[in-house]
């Protein structure tokens, strides 16, 4: 005797991932860490940007990197030269990082270091324009990169990452003249779906725009510190 029933779930398909992201964010908040999720298509310049960022900001901001690229040890080794903890995550054949993978990285960070000493965790996502934006990893801020060589239409064709980004870096601006990239058009295309995004053209090669990016990083760590009123952080007195 069979009876058929209906169970109304109304649960987001990514429910399990969202719970994992909340878990990660709770760790970050507890330790006073801001987390940036850095996303782009393959080769847009994520690792190059992180290298410049670590080199310039590590004296003033205590950073760690969670490296989720599939060419992982290569990228991780490039970043380790800056004396910053780099936790490489084996993403297998996944085309994006998910919350669980990043949790593994966070727990390792907490095990090997004192996590509350860190201000900023930079997560380099798998190079992919399509789905990383759909899988939160517990970040406070989404940073998207689009290189000038990819074409102005990419934000229209792969809109979700660009729609959700808090900051868009238009990278490799040194190459713009060679590929006749129209930066205004790129910006206009992104603003069609994300009018409030901060857009910064940068070149890791010439250094153009990097100061603006560093300033953006600084201000977004401070926002986090001010709003996280349960744990006000004081500057450490010099020893």
């Amino acid at each position: 005797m069979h009876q058929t029933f209906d169970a109304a779930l109304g649960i987001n398909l990514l429910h399990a991932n969202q719970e994992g992201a909340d878990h990660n964010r709770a760790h970050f908040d507890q330790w006073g860490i801001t987390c940036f999720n850095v996303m782009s298509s393959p080769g847009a310049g994520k690792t190059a940007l992180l290298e410049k960022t670590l080199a310039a900001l590590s004296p003033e901001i205590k950073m760690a990197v969670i490296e989720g690229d599939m060419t992982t040890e290569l990228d991780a080794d490039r970043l380790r030269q800056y004396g910053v903890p780099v936790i490489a995550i084996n993403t297998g054949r996944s085309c994006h990082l998910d919350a669980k993978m990043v949790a593994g990285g966070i727990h390792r960070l907490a095990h090997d270091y004192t996590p509350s000493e860190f201000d900023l965790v930079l997560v380099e996502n798998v190079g992919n324009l399509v789905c990383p934006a759909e899988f939160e990893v517990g970040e406070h801020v989404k940073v998207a990169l689009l290189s000038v060589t990819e074409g102005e239409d990419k934000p229209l064709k792969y809109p979700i990452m660009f729609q959700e980004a808090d900051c868009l870096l238009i990278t490799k601006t040194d190459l713009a003249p060679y590929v006749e990239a129209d930066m205004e058009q790129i910006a206009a295309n992104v603003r069609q779906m994300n009018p409030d995004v901060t857009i910064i053209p940068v070149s890791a090669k010439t250094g153009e725009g990097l100061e603006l990016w560093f300033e953006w990083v600084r201000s977004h760590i401070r926002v986090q510190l001010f709003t996280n009123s349960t744990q006000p952080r004081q500057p450490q007195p010099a020893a």
Partner: protein
Amino acid sequence: MHETDMTKALIVTVQDWWESQPDRPHISQVHLTVGQFTCVEPMSLQFAFEVQTRGTFLDGAELVIRETPLIAFCHRCQKEYRPEVGIQYACPVCQSPMEDILSGRELKIDRLEYSTDSHSSTAQSVHPT
């Protein structure tokens, strides 16, 4: 690729529900809503679901996908419009950016259809073959 991961996430969520049911019912249909403005391709999802549920508690269950179109609301015009995905997202009348998405971002498990065997509910250790 990512549909495989989406399907994994889907199965985990349904499994949580299934394991919370004392009688572990037989699930015959999983109803999903998939918005047009997501990274999910319904055909790939169907395929991945079929492959990944084989031999599991969801073996033979049917995945029913309802697609929802991208619909935005323009505050200046006080009007709904349908952006052309891949081409234009701003309001076609006044060019205001797309800000309020009314539909198209859904990735939701709406409901499950399941059956329980009224005999086995009192004799759970007897597994009918």
